[in-house]
């Protein structure tokens, strides 16, 4: 006889609920599948056919996980947003900054992409690691029941935070220079903004997004293959 509890535990493993709450959901869904299969056996189906039909009738496990999470967390939309967006987002940001610091301490330097006054500095060792961190963010968001948009937002969160820091620093330094009476060369400022924007926002953002997209696609494919196995 099929071990339905093990199957349900595996399919609902990523359901982000309190342990007691999750155990109750697993027990309830297990009992449902056991009864359905037993009834089919009573109707004279072979065990293999009963199991196959029960799995087929169970439906989409990814949808089940998402809906159960939404139903159980219905009165706590703020908490849901915290776990789907802010916690994984800030975690991805912190880990990416720590990663950058470690690389710097190890003496791995940025790489100059072009020569001359308009050279762009790309921190290639950091960029190479960012897809993994983007993937981590997307995974954590998806695990908490986040949508595709949530997962991708989380994966590029470090680049968004850098954009915010950039936009905040630019008028601040401009005002400071105006107050101190230093002449402001706007063409120079624009060039620096463009160069640093590419090196610290666009390129890292793209690297993070690639990781996030790959992780999300992989998670979706895994879920689809589980569905195929069910059917």
């Amino acid at each position, binding site marked *: 006889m099929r071990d339905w509890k093990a199957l349900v535990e595996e399919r609902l493993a990523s359901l982000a609920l309190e342990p007691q709450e999750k155990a109750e959901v697993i*027990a309830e869904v297990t*009992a*449902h599948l056991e009864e359905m299969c037993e009834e089919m056996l009573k109707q004279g189906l072979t065990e293999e056919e009963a199991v196959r039909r029960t799995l087929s009738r169970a439906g989409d*496990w990814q*949808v*089940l996980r998402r*809906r159960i999470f939404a*139903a*159980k967390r*219905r009165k706590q939309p703020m908490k849901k947003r915290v776990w789907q967006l802010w916690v994984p987002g800030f975690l991805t940001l912190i880990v990416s900054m720590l990663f950058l610091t470690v690389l710097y301490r190890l003496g791995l330097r940025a790489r100059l992409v072009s020569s001359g006054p308009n050279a762009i500095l790309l921190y290639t060792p950091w960029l190479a690691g960012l897809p993994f961190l983007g993937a981590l963010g997307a995974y954590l968001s998806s695990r908490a029941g986040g949508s595709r948009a949530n997962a991708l937002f989380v994966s590029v969160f470090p680049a968004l935070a850098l954009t915010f820091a950039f936009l905040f620093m630019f008028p601040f330094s401009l005002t400071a220079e105006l107050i101190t009476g230093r002449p402001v060369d706007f063409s120079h400022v624009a060039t620096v903004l463009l160069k640093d924007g590419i090196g610290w926002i666009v390129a890292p953002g793209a690297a993070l997004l690639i990781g996030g997209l790959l992780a999300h696609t992989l998670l979706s494919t895994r879920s689809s293959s589980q569905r195929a196995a069910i059917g």
Partner: protein
Amino acid sequence: MIAPGIKRGTAELAVLSVLEDGPLHGYEMARRIEEQTHGSLRFTLASLYPLLYKLEKRGWVRGAWETSGTGRRRRCYRLTSEGKKKVAPIRREWAELFRALKQLTKVSHA
């Protein structure tokens, strides 16, 4: 065959209606609905349990673990007094909708 989007809207009334007859556990609820609608409304796990949890949060149904004669633990749901009050207005809303659709489409089976 009824489209999934339409079925989703009717699921709440279907569940509340079968629970009017007495407490039921999830599988039995799905089985009865399917049987009474001659297979037109068929619940998957994803359409049944999240709905039951929502109804429970609203206070319309209450679930409690019970042990069956065979020793299996099952969660049985029953309508609360608040849930019982909701059935009639929801049923009226659906009846009104069907009447409106019938008038609009002039299809006797709407």
